[in-house]
């Protein structure tokens, strides 16, 4: 749908490298792109303003100026700052020393509160082995109690309900007593969805809070919320003094900038994210992934970081020297392959590339086992064979095939491919452009 921020910054800053200096104007240009990307992701415009000012400041510093690729560096910088702004790795709810731990769930109508209650119940049961009960205090929306009974029991939680006639505050208090009597570990209290302008319902929430004294109050926020997220967060902050946020509907294609706005304005961390229709589609929140999502760039950041971490500069220089002198051996090939593979399975790496996951390439054939086999073949060779593959005769090849658990054909293919690779390197060295079929290994 949209260009990724990465692409935009690349094109905005493409000419910087040749000039080798980032001007005031370049930074402003980059920040305009960042601003647009954040606004498209529904980050609150006030937050955007302050954020771009802060990042712009850093972008004028040395780490970007001296980089070979200022565009990518700015993206990295923005990602870092976003992650920092979104808070560190999130906590689970805090369990009370004396159970039951009481969790109050609040949120706007339609944000996914009732479902989130059941999902949280399941999470606490499955991940923490807690015995969880749910209190049905949404007496306002028709059939909300029925819904909680259904999803609650599907999640393996007890559901305490008294229909829709009693005062929700009384139901909540009764549920707390019952949870205590039945020695439950956790009681999750579902409340009515409300439009925050409705003072009456906000007051009801405040009364429930006062009465049951929850250990954690969680605000449920729809990831698709726009600029209004800040108003929502502030209103709920006043009425319920929430402690953390549950972000729902993250399985859509919303960028989820609302999450950032809520965190920035209230300072409250996002604890959980709901990512699908199924009860188990619920997980602890990952600020870094959210940052990437807001920037619309897949897991590019992780990819960059991984490359940075795994890439040894000295090794790279040595490799370059070998290629120049045409001394690239199977050992070097093996080392290269290992370096790439340290970044994770190839199929996974592919998914991190922006745009790829959206292309429906989910079942694209990238078989890591092919690489396993290549590795096995090379490690079955003697050092001499690896340095001089031309000495590989028939009997050596049969031995290698047996040693690596592959076939002679597989060994032949590897040797052939390696030969072509060396040829391509020689051509590159001589300044010739190798043909595509040569690059593809001539298969």
């Amino acid at each position, binding site marked *: *749908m949209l260009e990724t921020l990465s692409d935009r910054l690349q094109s905005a800053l493409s000419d910087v490298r040749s000039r080798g200096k980032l001007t005031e104007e370049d930074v402003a240009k980059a920040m305009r792109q960042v601003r*647009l990307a954040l*606004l*498209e*992701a*529904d980050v609150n*415009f006030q937050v955007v303003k302050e954020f771009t000012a802060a990042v712009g400041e850093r972008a004028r510093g040395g780490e970007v100026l001296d980089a070979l690729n200022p565009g990518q560096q700015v993206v990295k910088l923005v990602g870092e700052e976003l992650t920092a702004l979104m808070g560190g790795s999130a906590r689970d709810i805090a369990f009370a020393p004396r159970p039951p731990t009481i969790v109050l769930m609040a949120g*706007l*109508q*339609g*944000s*996914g509160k009732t479902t989130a209650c059941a999902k949280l119940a399941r999470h606490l049961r499955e991940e923490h082995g807690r015995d969880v009960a749910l209190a049905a205090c949404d007496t306002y*929306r*028709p*059939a*909300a109690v*029925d*819904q909680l009974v*259904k*999803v609650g029991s599907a999640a393996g939680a007890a559901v305490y309900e008294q229909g829709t006639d009693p005062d929700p505050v009384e139901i909540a208090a009764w549920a707390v007593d019952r949870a205590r009597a039945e020695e439950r570990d956790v009681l999750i209290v579902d409340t009515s969805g409300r*439009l*925050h*302008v*409705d003072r009456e319902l906000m007051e009801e929430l405040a009364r429930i809070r006062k009465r049951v004294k929850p250990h954690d109050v969680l605000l449920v926020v*729809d990831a*698709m*919320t*726009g*600029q*209004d*997220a800040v*108003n*929502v967060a502030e*209103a709920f902050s006043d009425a319920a003094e929430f402690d953390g946020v549950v972000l729902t*509907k993250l*399985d*859509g*294609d*919303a*960028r989820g*900038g*609302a999450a950032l706005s809520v965190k920035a304005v209230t300072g409250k961390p996002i604890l959980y994210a709901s990512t699908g*229709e199924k009860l188990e589609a619920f997980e602890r929140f990952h600020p870094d992934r959210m940052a990437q999502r807001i920037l619309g760039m897949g897991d590019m950041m992780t990819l960059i970081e991984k490359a940075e971490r795994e890439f040894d500069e000295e090794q790279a220089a040595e490799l370059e020297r070998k290629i120049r002198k045409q001394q690239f051996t199977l050992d070097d090939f093996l080392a290269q392959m290992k370096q790439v593979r340290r970044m994770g399975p190839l199929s996974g790496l592919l998914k991190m590339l922006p745009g790829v996951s959206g292309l429906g390439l989910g079942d694209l054939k990238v078989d890591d086992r092919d690489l396993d086999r290549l590795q096995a073949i090379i490690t079955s060779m003697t050092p001499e064979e690896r340095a001089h593959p031309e000495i590989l005769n028939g009997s050596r090849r049969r031995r290698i095939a047996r040693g690596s658990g592959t076939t002679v054909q597989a060994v032949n293919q590897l040797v052939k491919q390696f030969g072509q690779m060396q040829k391509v390197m020689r051509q590159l060295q001589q300044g010739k452009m190798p043909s595509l079929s040569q690059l593809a290994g001539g298969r």
Partner: protein
Amino acid sequence: MARTWRELFVAGDDRAELAEPEPEEQRRGFFARLRDNMAKSRQALGAELQASVFQTLDDDAWERLEETLIYADVGAPTTAAIVQRLETEAGSGGLAGGEALTGRLCELLADAARGGDDTIDLRARPAVVLVTGVNGTGKTTTIGKIAWHLRNELGLSVVLGAADTFRAAAVEQLAAWGERAGAEVVRAAEGADPGAVAYDAVEVARSRTRDVAIIDTAGRLHTQEHLMEELAKVRRVIDRQLPGAPHETLLTIDATTGQNGLRQALLFKQAVDVTGIVLTKLDGTAKGGIALAIAQELGVPVKLIGIGEGLEDLRPFDPDDFARALLGVSGG
């Protein structure tokens, strides 16, 4: 433009004449209330817009205006287009003074919000309305309110089809609304095929000569391809049962939705040929500017707005009122 129920619904039935015209007072009341809420919101420009912002037409003024629209979720591209247009017109000297500029801005916004035919044609018998949307946007509630208005303001008989067979207790929720609105509800067990329920509902409306059948569907994220395919199938089933139906396909969009609303509208339009938007939950502090972006970029008009939780809190959409509320300016 459709401003009253009888202007919105093309009922093609003289029974509609029996309905009392809506009191003017009541209709004005809401937007006054909406404006009040918005005025309270920190960012509303309102009087300031007329008084000071346009006094000096410098970059700050235009930026301030841009921020107001962005803050209303109008989105960057539509905002840029509108502000640029106004800036050009102001530059050519055609508009003098804050009042003229504000008036022109309202016009531009209202124009952008108009997206083709904004009436709902119910002349077919039975007329079939399919209601779709993302989870939690207020589909079922909207259906309850439409049914109530059709019965009470236009005197039409209504059948509701509970084709949301996925969400726990959705059928019960629709049944509760049916009771309040005085409409019969065609239902099946939870987990039943939604196409079959839609088929039955249209069949019931037909055999019992009811005027309108409204089909509720399960909320679904527009990114769930198999669920969108299921929805397209429901539409095909209805068409097979009654060629030409559904006569109206509504998409509910939550007014608090941000830029993702555009994607929602696009994908629903592709799947079931949406003919109108219902902008729900407009009584909060959210201004629903995404509807403007949808009308502008996809040409799908807003037909109804939801402004509260009561049965009577569903109203025909009025672009001029909407534009003024978006800016928080009074008058009109």
